[in-house]
């Protein structure tokens, strides 16, 4: 299953790209509208890019009244990414989305561009769990000492699955002036540079929980997606690659089938957890 990374696609401006995915994940929705950070918001690095968009979004009221109905009109499966600054805000967002025809809710507890409640993963997931019966994915940061512990905390609190990873904080300076290129100074690092980080996080979270995992981070080809599946992901998402190549979902899907077949797997998901060399540590509860 191929998704987009939250914040890396607007299905309303590029519907054909969203329709080429198995599921469209929205940009993170917050309780109140957010304009986002001051420009400059993006900068290329040698092996990736930085962004400091700052969770620009219309807020939950306009999202429910305007954005979501138009997304559903596209006929795509929708996951809604939600974000807040306290567990109660996540719970309120989940409660308001509970009766909407969306396939899952993704809790963004790891945006590097807003002050982040990383230490509160368990509290946030538990509050969200109490507020909705929807499938709940927790999107975690790899920038913690032990991703496995964070994943286990999310699992204990009732997450149905995990999304790994979000971007990690980085800084790019203007070569001439040595001033930060981004308006906000630091930003979230994504792209190929993140790929080994994502693989390690998926590998650890799989061992710690056995939960379904959406692997995200630097996927550019089907082979990259297959590696995430082998590390323990049951699905993967495309992020930065979509900026350069809106046709990436179609291409990557074809490559994925070919790469799996070339390695003797009947299907790409037959390579699930192959990197661990054995059966899952706990029963797989639900494959996304």
């Amino acid at each position, binding site marked *: 299953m191929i998704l987009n990374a939250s914040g890396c696609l607007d299905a309303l401006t590029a519907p054909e790209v969203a329709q080429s995915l198995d599921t469209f994940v929205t940009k993170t929705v917050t309780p109140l509208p957010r304009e986002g950070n001051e420009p400059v918001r993006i900068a290329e690095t040698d092996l*990736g890019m930085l962004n400091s968009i700052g969770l620009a979004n219309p807020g939950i009221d306009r999202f429910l009244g305007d954005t979501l109905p138009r997304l559903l009109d596209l006929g795509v499966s929708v996951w809604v990414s939600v974000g807040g600054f306290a567990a109660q805000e996540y719970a309120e967002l989940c409660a308001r989305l509970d009766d909407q025809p969306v396939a899952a809710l993704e809790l963004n507890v790891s945006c590097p561009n807003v002050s982040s409640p990383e230490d509160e993963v368990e509290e946030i997931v538990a509050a969200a769990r109490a507020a909705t019966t929807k499938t709940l994915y927790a999107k975690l940061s790899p920038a913690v000492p032990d991703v496995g512990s964070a994943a286990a905390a999310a699992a204990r609190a009732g997450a149905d699955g995990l999304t790994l990873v979000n971007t990690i904080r980085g800084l790019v300076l203007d070569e001439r002036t040595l001033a930060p290129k981004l308006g906000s100074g630091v930003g979230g690092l994504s792209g190929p540079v993140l790929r080994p980080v994502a693989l390690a996080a998926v590998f650890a979270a799989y061992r710690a929980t056995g939960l379904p995992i959406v692997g995200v981070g630097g996927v550019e080809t089907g082979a990259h997606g297959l590696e995430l599946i082998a590390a323990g992901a049951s699905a993967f998402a495309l992020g930065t690659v979509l900026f350069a190549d809106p046709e990436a979902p179609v291409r990557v899907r074809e490559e994925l089938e070919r790469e799996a077949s070339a390695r003797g797997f009947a299907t790409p998901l037959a390579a699930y957890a192959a990197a661990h060399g054995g059966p899952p540590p706990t029963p797989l509860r639900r494959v996304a």
Partner: protein
Amino acid sequence: MPFHSRSGLRRELLDVVKVEEVGPYRLLRLKRGRLESGIPGQFFMLAPPGRLLPRPMSLCLATRTELGFLIDPIGPGTNALTGVARGERLQALGPLGNGFRLDVDRPLLVGGGIGVAPFPYLAERLARPPAVLGFRSQAHAEAAALVPNAEVVVEPRLVTEAMPLGHDVLACGPEPMLRAVAALAPDAQLAWEAPMACGYGACYGCAVEIDGKLERLCVEGPVLEHAA
């Protein structure tokens, strides 16, 4: 209303025809393939070899068989784009965004520096209107040869000092120039610039302030009917 492209993304690997020197600038000429040339002021995302992100470039020239882009090679992306040779190919996505509104009575093109890039194509579509073009040096001013009926000014003289009033102004250039032009011609159509990762509304990187709100320039612009 400006031309809107809300869907129908077209992307193609285009053959490099040649790269020509135009003073310090380079004119990158590509085989057109099956891509549309679009409305002047629209742009294409061109993928520089070896770089992660494509770069937004407005279309400079369109013939039946070629698309031309005037590029200022100032960084790793623009250097890679202008470092290609015949036999190589480049990914191009476009046309994207909203171009200039062409139903104007007394068009006047006002451009500064690399901002003259969309004018050769625009001038052709508007039946060669008068133009006032400003450059920082005589070498840069060589680009004016691409634009018919152009009056050239070189710094320290500014385009706003040479700009006749009472026209329908279509302008492209650095932000201070656009603001100065808008002060003299409030109804001017202005083509703005911002760093972009995608060019089709996905990345939210190209936010500019429009009517007091941060909006995506690739979706709302790059040509806007008022000062952003």
